[in-house]
């Protein structure tokens, strides 16, 4: 049976068919759907871990314990899990272990566009790059066998366009893989220096064996066509090459670390001109050039942003067309010329950036932060949108959990008086991911800073996943609910306040009090995510007789509020009834529908 699946669901299906037993992840676009899908298979234990490091460690324990295991994360999540990964490369596995890295070229929902294929090279472990959902499924299944055959973790690297694109997948049945025996082997699993030294030699031997495997595996294949032009490519870039340059010979690499030197050398020598087309960094190209092979790549193909068939047609395609126009797709060659003026006209239209939803509980907190003119060390989540107009109340956003350390560093750089003007802002899920150690630092090292935890009771940005503070697991079973107040107190914070995010006066009062107070403080601004609150609240309306047209309410940046040229207007379809606008209106011109004459 064939089914249309996104890459992430194909991956989950492949892992399940391959006998997966344990899977762990922290949500992160574009990886989130993998665990969501795996949580639906009764044969698989799937968890949301507090962060990616824990997720990989759980997978390591499961694999050493004899069960096929998987950890999934977005590219920057692998940074968090890099510590266990580098040593896992030494210990190897017992049962198969696959680490999924879902990279985000183009930064659709990320803070950078790092190319995680380099992790495979640092760790000296295999990297697989599928090019559509069927390949995702096939390579996932193969990754478990490879992992066991070579006693190594395997990185399965997706990108947004693979993870989130649908294509047809042939479904199969699950093959039960019995638990492997667990044997106590300290020299393999206890990485004391003496054991680690010996294991490093094993890593080297394994790399050579894998390089030999790379020469013959069907994962790497040549598609011969016109031999005047050859292109080496991998992952989604391969699809763009096939689309833009249908006539050229292609060496498609599915295993991109370690590379097959002989296969590549033979291919480059068999064509007149050879290009390397890859998204982001010259990962393949640098290694190929190091062998002294004449290839062209990043001097033509951009290193920044996601690639596309149009870009391949513009860049490599125009070189190829000069030599042999029949090798380039006519439709794309034409499309590449036509739309520039039109694209420019489109760029002059009013933009439509993402923004906080109507009724979003974060909005009011950022409104107050802006009003008070505070320096805001921000963090990762929907609330990072607090940095954008009209609120513009965020000064930094680096990575998960960075708000605390950054606020602390600013305070130490500029003195305790400055601490009265700095707040850290972090979401509930992000706080549990990697905020607790930063808060401990503030207590331990004598900060006067204030941390605001925006507690909307979910991991909202990635689509409302549970976390240790929601009271539910990935499989929607009840779980102990982490208590943010108690955690803050247990870490040594004496000043902890809880306020209603919708109550602007209370939020402002709390922020004024805590920034003025000595010692570290925590304010928990609490309200469930507006998208989780399904009941339609009574909407607010503008009283035409009282509205002064002052536009104060528009400073909230609420999508339900607009200006008709003279007065404010509330769109009743979009309004979620949060009531922030009535609190900021100086003329009492906004009231709940139904409370007065209509």
């Amino acid at each position, binding site marked *: 049976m*064939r089914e*249309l699946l996104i890459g992430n669901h194909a991956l989950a299906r492949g892992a399940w068919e391959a006998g997966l037993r344990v899977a762990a992840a922290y949500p992160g*676009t*574009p990886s989130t759907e993998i665990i969501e899908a795996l949580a639906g298979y009764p044969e698989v234990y799937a968890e949301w871990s507090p962060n990616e490091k824990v997720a990989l460690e759980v997978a390591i324990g499961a694999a050493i314990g004899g069960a096929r295991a998987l950890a999934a994360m977005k590219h920057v999540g692998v940074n968090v899990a890099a510590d266990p990964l580098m040593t896992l490369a030494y210990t190897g596995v017992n049962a198969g272990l696959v680490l999924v890295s879902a990279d985000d070229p183009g930064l*659709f*929902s990320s803070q950078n566009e790092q190319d995680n294929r380099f992790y495979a090279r640092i760790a000296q472990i295999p990297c697989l790059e599928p090019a*559509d959902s069927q390949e995702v499924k096939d390579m996932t299944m193969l990754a478990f066998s490879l992992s066991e055959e070579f006693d190594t973790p395997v990185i399965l690297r997706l990108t947004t*366009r693979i993870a*989130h*694109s*649908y*294509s*047809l997948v042939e479904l199969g049945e699950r093959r039960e893989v019995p638990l492997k025996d667990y044997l106590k082997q300290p020299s393999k699993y206890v990485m004391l220096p003496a054991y680690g030294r010996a294991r490093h030699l094993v890593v080297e031997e394994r790399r050579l064996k894998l390089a030999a495997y790379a020469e013959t595996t069907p994962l790497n294949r040549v598609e011969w066509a016109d031999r005047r032009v050859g292109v080496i490519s991998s992952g*989604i870039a391969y*699809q*763009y090459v*096939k*689309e833009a340059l249908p006539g050229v010979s292609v060496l498609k690499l599915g295993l991109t670390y370690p590379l097959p030197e002989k296969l590549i050398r033979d291919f480059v020598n068999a064509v007149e001109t050879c290009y390397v087309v890859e998204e982001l960094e010259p990962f393949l190209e640098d290694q190929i050039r190091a062998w002294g092979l004449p290839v062209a790549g990043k001097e033509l193909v951009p290193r920044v942003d996601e690639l*596309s*068939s*149009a870009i391949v047609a513009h860049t490599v395609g125009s070189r190829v067309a000069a030599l042999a126009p029949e090798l380039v*797709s006519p*439709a*794309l060659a*034409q*499309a*590449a010329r*036509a*739309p520039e003026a*039109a*694209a420019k*006209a*489109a760029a002059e*239209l*009013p*933009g*439509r*950036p*993402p*923004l*906080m*939803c109507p009724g979003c509980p974060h909005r009011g907190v950022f409104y107050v932060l802006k009003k008070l003119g505070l320096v805001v060390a921000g963090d990762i989540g*929907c609330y*990072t*949108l607090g940095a954008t*107009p*009209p609120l513009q109340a965020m000064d930094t956003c680096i990575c998960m959990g960075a708000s605390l350390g950054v606020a602390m560093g600013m305070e130490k750089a500029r003195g305790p008086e400055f601490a009265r003007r700095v707040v850290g802002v972090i979401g509930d899920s992000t706080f549990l991911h990697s905020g607790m150690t930063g808060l401990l630092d503030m207590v331990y090292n004598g900060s006067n800073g204030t941390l605001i935890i925006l507690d909307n009771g979910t991991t909202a*940005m*990635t*689509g409302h996943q549970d976390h240790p503070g929601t009271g539910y697991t990935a499989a929607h079973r009840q779980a102990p609910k982490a208590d943010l107040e108690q955690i803050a107190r247990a870490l040594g914070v004496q000043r902890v306040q809880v306020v209603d995010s919708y109550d602007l006066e209370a939020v402002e009062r709390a922020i004024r009090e805590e920034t003025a107070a000595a010692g570290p403080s925590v304010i928990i601004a609490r309200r469930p995510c507006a998208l989780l609150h399904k009941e339609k609240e009574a909407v607010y309306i503008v009283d035409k007789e009282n509205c002064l047209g002052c*536009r104060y309410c*528009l*400073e909230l*940046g*609420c*999508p339900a*509020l*607009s*200006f008709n040229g003279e007065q404010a207007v509330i769109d009743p*379809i979009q309004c979620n009834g949060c009531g922030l606008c009535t609190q900021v209106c100086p003329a009492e011109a906004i009231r709940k529908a139904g409370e007065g004459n209509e």
Partner: protein
Amino acid sequence: MNNGVVNVLLVGVGGQGTILAGRVLSRAAVSLGGEVKVSDIHGMAQRGGSVVTQVRFGPRVYSPVMAPGTADFLVAFEKLEARRWLYYLRDGGQLIVNNQELPPLPVLTGAAAYPAELVAEMEKLVKNMLVIDALELARQAGNVKAVNMVLMGALARQLPIGREAWEEALAASVPARFLEVNKKAFNLGWDHNG
């Protein structure tokens, strides 16, 4: 059309249901027996931003993403988004546009004006344009959120996919309790002739 591949671009505003519309279309397209590829954008961009779903189907489809100037159909859930993505439409391609205005943030805050005369402007640029009041038709169907299915109905009429395949795709994509409303919306879109 490019090697028998049909390119459909669905554009709108996060929250308008472009993703679900793309699912219905792609499921229906599977009935043609060839390949189908679909690309959506998730995460931060979904929060009220400009969103796009790309659906491509044909005998052999490589990229899940189409190039500008190659869309056979541009289905715009909102007027400004139609204008924004118009350069994706190929010469002679069909534009289907919902005659609805959702002011983006710069307009809400008064920093920019919503462009006037968008439909008249696009009429000059595009030969085949169908303007449809999908919000009103969705309201008639019983739910203002069914705008997406009204537009799918209008598109369906112009695609070589059987009515039965559409009905199956709808039933497979929409929760049972919303199926009737969505079917009604789809039919109103189908019957709409500009």
